[in-house]
């Protein structure tokens, strides 16, 4: 599996998520259904193969390990990411985040209000609880990546 292939598959998965899953999340759901959905979401996102899960892509600060790969399309100034986590619910949350940020420019990323976006999905607690589930660490790493590029 090449990085290009993964990026394409991810884009496809994110489109499906945006169209099918996010609207469901905007509805009032009991917590059980919400978690079931999160896990399904996680499954849709392609996995980063073992051999690409190198230490340098490992994001620390979470109970579970997560990986972030970054691709900067400098011609069009767009940022693309691959995300994965060994924990399924965390991966679902990462998929949602990715559906908001994939393909944005540095400028757009800066303007994005992730809090508000998660709030609209009744998922805000997961962002503020972000230290242990690793979402916050992931956001920090993404910020570091885009300012570094």
């Amino acid at each position: 599996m090449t990085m290009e292939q993964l990026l394409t598959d991810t884009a496809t998965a994110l489109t499906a998520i945006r169209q099918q899953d996010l609207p469901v999340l905007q509805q009032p759901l009991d917590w059980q259904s919400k978690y079931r959905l999160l896990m399904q979401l996680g499954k849709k996102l392609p996995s980063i193969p073992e051999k690409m899960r190198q230490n340098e892509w490992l994001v620390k600060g979470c109970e579970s390990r997560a990986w972030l790969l970054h691709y900067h399309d400098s011609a069009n100034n767009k940022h693309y990411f691959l995300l994965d986590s060994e924990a399924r619910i965390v991966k679902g949350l990462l998929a949602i985040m990715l559906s908001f940020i994939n393909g944005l420019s540095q400028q757009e990323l800066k303007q994005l209000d992730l809090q508000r976006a998660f709030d609209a999905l009744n998922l805000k607690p997961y962002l503020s609880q972000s230290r242990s589930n690793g979402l916050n660490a992931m956001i920090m790493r993404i910020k570091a990546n885009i300012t570094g590029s």
Partner: protein
Amino acid sequence: MSDFNAAAFRQHFPFFTEQPEWIYLDNAATTHKPAAVLDAVGLFYRQQNSNVHRGTHLLSETATNLYEDARTCVQKYLNAAESAEIIFTSGTTAALNQIAYGLMHSVLKAGDRVVISALEHHANIVSWQLHCQRFGVILDVIPLQGDAASGYQLDLNAYNKLLSLNPKVVSLTQVSNALGCILPLENMLLAAKACGAITVVDGAQGIAWQVPDMQTLAADFYCFSAHKLYGPTGLGVLYGKREWLEKLTPLLGGGEMIEHVSFARSRFNQLPARLEAGTPSIAAALGLAAAIRFISTFDAEQIKSYKRLLLKTFHDGIQHIPGINLLSAQQNNAGIVTLNVQGEHPADLALLLNEQRIAVRAGQHCAMPLFELLAVPGAVRFAFAPYNQLTEVEQCLNALTQAVEILAL
């Protein structure tokens, strides 16, 4: 002393009144504090606040007396020979580091061996590792045997072989913070002493299960943290037999710990001052004394039985939930159950329990080497305290069942 009543016991802890929706089972990480502790800390700051020692005014005198009374309170609790054998530190971690550093710089020599166990918390591993290489000291590890069902235990044959190498130090945890199992300390320490080893016990998890008697347990050092014994954060106790405390090279230099300072050299003060540099954690020491006085009004054996009941109820209930991989056994357990849902990541389970307001911890519990031995990436830990109710255990079992169902998707 009246019969232990769990519901009445719980009433003493304001946390549960103020956070009624939570089921708190993260007691191995830290315990809640009874009102008596909060009152002691508040009273100190409102009426008694002053620095201790060398004060010429009555306020400082009073604060010093309270602080020294706290030391005596701990001494009596541990049945130490004298109050100077009680050193206040900032926590178990600081205490273990003082012991490791202090022995490395005085007693130990290159080629000497230190024995720890496979069940140790990082505080009892890294504190030795920091110095082992520099001093050429060898760290030996007692391996595990057994399995989850019957309970993992230390391999005592292997221990005896390690003892035959005449280690200078044997440093063991009283209770595993990751699995809950209780070490057979009495005999292990006697065997260590028979070989002439200095014995150290990490009581961070053990103190709330079984208070040691320092005049019968063959331990030269014992340490614990106040915050795991219903006391405040920021305080630990380092107990040591006088002869060994005297030998420890101080880890910290500063006020009070010296008798005479000149720019050329300093002369150390007597115990306990020589190992307590700087302004101590005064309010927390008073808080710990209040915690000890509080817990001493209850029968320790009854508390133990009650904890065993909580544990049994939980363990029995788990048998009915499919797909649970237990890491802890029921027998010989101080109240900690560690488990995984088959094929699932512990973080996912903990998130689902958190959603149901059950506070547990997921991960490797500062015992990474143990988890490498067990070949599992982590686990979810349920740690019980006597303020937990049987109804909470039931709720927790239901929550676990729900979580397993969701994960089974």
